[in-house]
């Protein structure tokens, strides 16, 4: 540790300031590069070993041979990914330059193949064999696997990728890196630019939210709108219907009840804001402030107990 201190001292003398650390996302991107390259190196030998070792479906966890074995990063659960990785032939891949750009490209192509299964058309640059989405495959990988897409369903390529990246950008930088690297076919610079876009999106979203504060569900105060005039798909009705479904029964589109804004977990009655209390407001009796009793410790009066 002493030499580190020495180094820092030299750094400050020579440079005049302490070095700035690389941003965490840069390091994570490079770790991803390493992982994808390692995957590319193992992909050739892994495909045979992995088939049947880890099913890729979210719903069909562990189902042998459920779709292509896929990439370790795209399995529905971490356990499946771990099982897949364990099934790869690491010894064979360790020969040669594991982190070569060629291996990285091979890895991204394999990823593209698997991501391509979410689209109806083949990906440029990849060579996907599937033309439809395996049930729960990508939807599971993206964390939304509650409703697996039907085996025969075919989603437009653009829509699929757009949704995929939107998910990635919002909550998971890693997915954005993969999506960016294979879609853009560029280095980290272009991917980093994508992060800028994410930030802008978030700022725009925050700004939109800020502007909506103090409004009546998006309508300006005093605009004269009533709830009945709101579109059936407005956030207002959405909240109302949720609440109604939890408390009473089936939602009633367009129906309105006072005071219902947030869903509750109990069957409490809805508040009735039309109700006016009939009680009499009585004035409380005036309080009398008593004089402060003479304390035991009173330095100003000689009669005090503790005064000498």
């Amino acid at each position, binding site marked *: 540790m002493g030499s580190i201190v020495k*180094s820092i001292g030299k750094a400050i003398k020579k440079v005049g300031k302490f070095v700035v650390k690389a941003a965490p996302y840069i390091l994570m991107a490079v770790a991803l590069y390493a992982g994808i390259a390692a995957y590319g190196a193992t992909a050739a030998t892994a495909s045979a070993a992995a088939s049947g070792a880890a099913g890729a479906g979210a719903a069909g966890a562990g189902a042998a041979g459920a779709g292509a074995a896929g990439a370790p990063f795209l399995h529905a659960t971490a356990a499946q990914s*771990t099982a897949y990785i364990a099934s790869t032939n690491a010894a064979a891949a360790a020969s040669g330059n594991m982190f070569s750009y060629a291996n990285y490209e091979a890895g991204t192509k394999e990823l593209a193949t698997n991501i391509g299964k979410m689209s109806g058309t083949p990906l440029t640059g990849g060579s996907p064999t599937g033309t439809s989405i395996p049930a729960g495959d990508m939807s599971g990988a993206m964390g939304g696997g509650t409703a697996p897409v039907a085996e025969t369903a075919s989603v437009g390529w653009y829509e699929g990728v757009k949704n995929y990246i939107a998910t990635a950008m919002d909550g998971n930088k890693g997915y954005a890196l993969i999506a960016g690297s294979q879609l853009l076919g560029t280095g*980290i610079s272009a991917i980093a630019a994508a992060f800028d876009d994410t930030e802008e999106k978030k700022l725009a979203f925050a700004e939109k939210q800020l502007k909506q504060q103090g409004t009546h569900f998006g309508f300006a105060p005093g605009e004269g709108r009533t709830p009945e005039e709101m579109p059936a798909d407005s956030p207002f009705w959405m909240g109302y219907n949720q609440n109604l479904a939890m408390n009473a029964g089936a939602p009633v589109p367009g129906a309105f009840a006072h005071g219902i804004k947030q869903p509750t977990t109990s069957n409490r009655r809805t508040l009735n804001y039309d109700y006016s209390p009939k009680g009499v407001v009585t004035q409380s009796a005036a309080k009398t402030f008593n004089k402060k009793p003479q304390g035991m410790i009173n330095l100003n009066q000689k009669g005090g107990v503790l005064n000498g």
Partner: protein
Amino acid sequence: MVKDGRAQQIPTGQSVVSPEDAELGIQPERLGSQMSDPLQEPTKEEESQVDMLLGGILDFVWGDGYDEIKGRMERSPNNLQQTIGGWAGRMVNVEVKSAAEGGVNVSRDILIGVAAEIINAVAEIAKKEKLWKPANDKEEEQFQGEALMYALEKYGELGDEGLNPQKSMEMAMSILREEQPEAQMMSQLGVRQKEEAKPYG
């Protein structure tokens, strides 16, 4: 009968997505109790290995090697990120092999963080010596990121029998699944967390 203090089991469910997010195609996140932790916390030994590797290399960079590094960058100013990355990859590779000869098995998990710090230092020299003028912080980060990839490639090119592809894939998987907080992930990659120094004056 002793009652469970908790009213009911917490069911697996999913996060709530706002209508605005739903418009962007963002889907609810599945939540459950099946959290996995394939990566281990960095050990004390690994932390000390980071210091051990960096100590010698940074001493060289800021000491005896400073003029040589500067001179080489001046002689070949083009594609500096590849040059710097190559140096970093070679330095780390030599140090790891030297440590192995001395009976120390360096954890390969920490090497990215070590290389990043070396690149950081050399990039700072390039900047100080006006051999590289980044327009902004973003450009600086991208430069260092690309250099780090070159470092990784060089490291693989030089070879290391201790490399384990499975560990690399597990690390990548963990990043993709955001299993650990960013700070913890950085720590696992060999990034020293508690190092903030203010310049004199």
